[in-house]
């Protein structure tokens, strides 16, 4: 942030103020979205009276473990890809060494990091995951029928930070610094997009899953996995 004011340039802008803006929008937007949904649900007479912690956790757990639900068992390929994809998607940026260094430089904090080789593989898994979903959208007729332009945009938003990060690390295609600027822009775009697009399933998953789990467990006396 300080660097931007002493030496304003595109690089210091995307590294300084834009990161702040992105994180504030991401965290603030997420809190706003979840809060709004919960407040709305409180007004509905049939949501909260049925909510049950036991059935919610039971349902979430069964869907967060690979092959623990019937649909995960039926589609092994999808299950493996989607779990690998989502795990790498969330943990690579958090535990990446370069990102950790940035946190350390700015705030003097750091935590456990991935080795560079592991991070490379994990980024590749995300990229291949995106590619898999992209091909699935074109090839599988039932997915193709419900695919909109927005779905491709969301895939691109997810794909871009990992691709540019990968290329920047290996210094391919474009000069390092330019690629780094694109990478940071892409990452910030994704952070901002999460609360306000359907990437928000990251936030809503817990709520919708627990409502359905409670509904099936407490109301229909059945499993929902």
């Amino acid at each position, binding site marked *: 942030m300080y660097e931007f004011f002493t030496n304003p340039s595109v690089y210091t802008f995307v590294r300084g103020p834009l990161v702040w803006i992105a994180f504030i929008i991401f965290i603030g937007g997420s809190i706003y979205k979840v809060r709004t*949904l*919960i407040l*709305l*649900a409180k*007004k*509905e007479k*049939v*949501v909260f009276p049925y909510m049950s912690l036991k059935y919610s956790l039971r*349902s979430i757990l069964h*869907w967060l473990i690979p092959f623990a*639900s*019937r*649909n995960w068992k*039926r*589609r092994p390929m*999808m299950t493996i890809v989607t779990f690998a994809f989502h795990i790498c998607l969330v943990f690579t940026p958090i535990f990446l060494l370069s990102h950790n260094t940035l946190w350390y430089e700015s705030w003097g904090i750091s935590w456990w990091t991935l080795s560079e080789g592991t991070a490379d593989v994990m980024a590749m898994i995300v990229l291949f995951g995106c590619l898999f979903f992209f091909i699935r959208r074109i090839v*599988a*007729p*039932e*997915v*193709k*029928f*419900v*695919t*909109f332009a927005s*779905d491709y945009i*969301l895939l691109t938003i997810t794909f871009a930070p990992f691709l540019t990060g990968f290329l920047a690390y290996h210094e391919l295609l474009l000069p390092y610094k330019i690629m780094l600027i694109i990478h940071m822009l892409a990452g910030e775009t994704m952070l901002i997009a999460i609360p306000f697009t*359907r990437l*928000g*399933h990251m936030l*809503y*998953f817990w*709520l*919708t*899953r627990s*409502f*359905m*789990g409670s*509904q*099936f467990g407490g109301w*229909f006396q059945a*499993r*929902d*996995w």
Partner: protein
Amino acid sequence: MAEVKAVEKEVKIEEVLEPSLDKELRIKRKKVVDPGFDETIKRLTPEKIEKTINAVLNLRKTAARFLAPLETCIHCALCSDACQYYISHDKDPTYSPASKLRLTLWEMIRRKGKVSPEFIKQCARIAFTECNICHRCSMYCPFGLDITYQIGMVRRILFLLGVVPHNILDQDNSQSATLTQLWISQADWIDTIQWLEDETRLEYKNLRLPIEKEGAEVMWAPLGTEPKIATYHVVRTAIIMNVAGIDWTVPSRDGWDSVNMAMFIRDFETMQRVVLGLYENCLRLKVKRLVLTE
């Protein structure tokens, strides 16, 4: 053999439903004639459709159950395998739960309610005849989204527009007028119970079909079809109750029919009156338990 082939050919006649719609919305279906769809859409005007759709879609701003699935669904189509319509139509993608929303609700939202009567007719076909509201898709959705609730909202829009299968609309009208499914008057109901008691007593000595017995243990609420066209069901229930020695009764006033056709077409106003009628009878007769036929 030639005959079989001819029959097969006839059964497999498939044509594009509503050719006037946009290319991506045209789906292949066998033609079905229902005055509830074909005649009612003639009364629709673009303004009426837009106003009705937007009135229901505005509920998104106040109903979390409506809003959350729309903002969460990532269009993965993993719900497809859950749907018996999808499976029994050789995995035709237009029958999958997500596709049904894509062809109805999502399109209404995308066009902000500016849709044609032909589109409404196709929606009616999908929402009423290609979805059972069975909730299986919610069991297959990784997010546990209430897909059937969304189809229910499509039904709500269609009900408000009057585009409902003729048969169901008739039963709904009956419920709003008489609180029974099949236009049964209070006099008919009491009369049926009394002559059934008379007849059954020929076989079962001292059998009772007690009407309006205050303070009984159980109040029985049959389906409207039972006293109307399947009276032997009433007799069987009476025999079971008598042999089991249960202290039971049936109400004499309206509000004894446990069928709720209004619920299926999301006529919320009548739906509430039907349920309220049952509970009011229970309270009035001071019974401990309500037993329904199903």
